[in-house]
């Protein structure tokens, strides 16, 4: 009798485990080249596309200015001696952006989205952060260190600092 209850328990546990892993597998964001997505159009430089995808992963829900600001922070980093000096180097620096760590950067860009425009404005030199190197969402930031940064401005949900 006791053996069977343990067996039932094991079955239930494995079932839960299987469900959990399948769920993770199915919902892990992957690039999809849908026709009409900005990625698939293939125009613009590779830097512009990479920057647009990073902005999309990090600040999809933000205002236009908030999106340009995130792009500007990435570009400011490439010009700072403490960071890698290419756009790809900055974006893919281990642990630098949560959207890269969790694969959000690979989410396809919505055709109506303004992230490509925002990436272009950032590349053309617009910087609403006035030279900031960091940003974080005060509601979700897990790093204690980030709070040691001086806050320069706030745009949307993000604090921007140096």
């Amino acid at each position, binding site marked *: 009798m006791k053996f069977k209850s343990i067996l*039932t328990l094991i*079955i239930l546990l494995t079932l839960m485990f299987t469900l959990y892993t399948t769920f993770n597998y199915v919902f892990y964001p992957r690039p999809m080249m849908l026709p009409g997505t900005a990625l698939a159009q293939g125009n613009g430089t590779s830097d512009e596309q990479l920057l647009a995808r990073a902005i999309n992963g990090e600040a999809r829900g933000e205002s*236009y200015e908030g999106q340009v600001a995130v792009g500007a922070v990435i570009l400011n980093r490439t*010009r700072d*001696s403490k*960071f890698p000096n290419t756009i790809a180097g900055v974006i893919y620096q281990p642990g630098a952006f949560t959207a890269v760590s969790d694969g959000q950067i690979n989410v396809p860009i919505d055709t109506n989205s303004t992230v490509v425009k925002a990436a272009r*404005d950032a590349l*053309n*030199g617009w910087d609403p952060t*006035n030279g900031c190197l960091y940003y974080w969402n005060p509601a979700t930031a897990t790093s204690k260190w980030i709070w040691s940064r001086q806050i320069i401005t706030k745009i949307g949900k993000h604090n921007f600092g140096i």
Partner: protein
Amino acid sequence: MGIREKLLDFKRRLSDRKMYSIVIVIIGAVAFWGLYQYKHAANLRQELDNQYNRAFFDMVGYVNNVETLLMKSMITSTSERTAATLQEAWRQSNLAQENLGMMPVPQHILANTSKFLSQVGDFSYTLNNQSLYGKQLSEQEYQQIEQLHGYALSLQESLGELQNNLSGGRIKWGDLANKGAGIFSKTSSELPEQQFTDIDKTFQEYPTLIYDGPFSDHITTAEPMGLTGDMLNSEQAKQSVVNFFGADVIREINDRGKNDNGAIKTYSYRVLFKDKPDEEDALIDVTQKGGHVCWVLQNRPVPESILTIDQVKAAGLEFLKKHGYENMVDTYYIKEDNTATINYAYKQGDVTVYPDLIKVKITLDNGEVLGIEAKGYVFSHREREIPEAKISVDNARTLITPRMEIISTGLAIIPTNYKTELFCYEFKGKLNDREFLVYINTETGQEERILIILDTPGGILTM
């Protein structure tokens, strides 16, 4: 049937012999699948570990080379040899810095090490350029190299220690990924993070390094030269915002605070417009000194292109004139999404002053100005005392390759990437159907810069 009965029923069914074997098979299958997943994850982790190791060992190698090359550059006696050695030091430190950026430790832990490698590369590159023109290193430059060499040496030592720990299996990169995973987290002293922190400590007393390169420490402290007028408070500066957009279209101006970071100190505002929804707002920064507009950022969908590029160029010029920017000329532009971003440079007499740059973003449907980026202008605009050219145009012409057919000649002040300016002849020429701009220094006759003009339907750009 109640839950209790259902459970009892389930139990009864389990005791069935056939059911029993099915359950065994299921458990077996799940166990197999689990093992497969585990193996797969282990393989991936190993792959990642290998990448990290490669980046690390590469970096150690590059740092060793930088140390040797800096040492050698102090000994070489001919400027050609010095140039060659420093050029290699520049390349090796760039590679070291690149690999440093791949280490799986938070950026701030290695910030000073990264800065050191950037500066060594940048400094070597600057000295390399000097040496190429036959200039010997000065006493001060020797001292700077010696100082940098000392730091390279201690970096090399601490990296060597870390390398031993890695080879001895005392550190695994995977530990970093598992960090913070609740019960599996380790004490910090075992983590590579701690060891890297110790390395970065080497640079705590690292001195400021001043030279003619973009990563030099004096660049960040440069003072803007284009700021005229008195210091204003936020209320007074708001007048510039009203003037910029026009009082008749503004619904509301919200104060977004002030920004004292960097060379140009500003007040920030958010502007809402009378006939536009809240999303089509504008952000604007105005300098605290003099109330100059620093940048404006606004967005709205632009459905169609009606105007030609010449029409919007003229509209932009008109707009700038109306706001007090006289003598501007358009240089390059780019068309995207039914808007054009046009670069305007200041023209003093017959000299185009490229550092005094204003970028204007104009819609191609009705010529509305959506954005301004005037940091270049605000930073460097002034009436310059332009010296007489020491080299004649004809002389300068002979310094350019005869293969290039010259289309036009002009005078220009061009910015360097370390915020100084050069007074040059600007030759526009053609070679193999590609157009070029060649800049010859009016004082030394040096070929300072060559730009390729990209004339595409999307705009005219240089690279």
